[in-house]
């Protein structure tokens, strides 16, 4: 006894929502469809891993590239407030 199933969503549709999927901000229905797609689609799993790394890259941008000379000038500005 199998329920009539909706066809899998296409890759493009899955990929479009992967960022939101990673952030768990897609509606539950869509979330389930993407999970189902990922279970059988290796390429989209690759995309998913890549999205995670890309998010990590953005989140890891710390402050250490700030030019010290600018910081010095701004500290001076703060002293003179």
């Amino acid at each position: 006894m199998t329920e009539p199933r909706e066809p899998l969503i296409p890759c493009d549709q899955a990929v479009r929502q992967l960022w939101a999927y990673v952030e768990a901000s897609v509606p539950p229905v869509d979330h389930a469809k993407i999970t189902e797609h990922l279970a059988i689609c290796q390429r989209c799993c690759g995309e998913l891993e890549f999205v995670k790394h890309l998010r990590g890259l953005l989140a890891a941008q710390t402050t250490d590239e700030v030019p010290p000379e600018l910081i010095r000038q701004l500290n001076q500005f703060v002293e003179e407030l």
Partner: protein
Amino acid sequence: MSGTPARRTPRTKDAFQALARAQLPRLLALARRLTRDEAEDLVQEALLRGYLAYPELEADQAGGRWLQVILVNVYRDRERKRARSAEELPVADADNFSLYRTIVEEDPFPYSDTVHLDFLHSFTKEDVRQVLLRLPEIYRMPLVLCHMEGFATKEVARLCQAPLGTVLARLHRGRKAFEREMWTYAEEMGLLKEHRRTP
């Protein structure tokens, strides 16, 4: 912050200066992602506004975020005054680019098993900043605030003074535009050459 009682030290000039000094690197980094040429100026104006509004700051712990929000507001007001027409990218163009697939197809590091990671690792922090600065302003701001500074999308909508749906759409297109610019930048700057990688 739950569980931490809100501290409120007297709102003196000394206290503001201490807060400002501690937050300077972070504020400057944020400003440098939002604007190419006016970062220092932006930080100065934010500090002046912050100093004037300092008595209104509720809890000490919120000081860093509070200054960031002031800086974003200064930036938004300036952009608005310039009445720079915000250009939306054509939808199809923005939506259909996949950096992941482009890397697979172009295979820039043919001897590598981790070609996608190699690609990302070839970007220094300065490279990432340069890519961001190439994006249209309406996409850059949500991207920077959400994915780099950790603002919630609702907060970003409030800061951009735009509906949440609009901000979500811009975030989506901004991410796609960012992916595409990463590829273009890598090609232009020669990041895709094998010898640039660490041996």
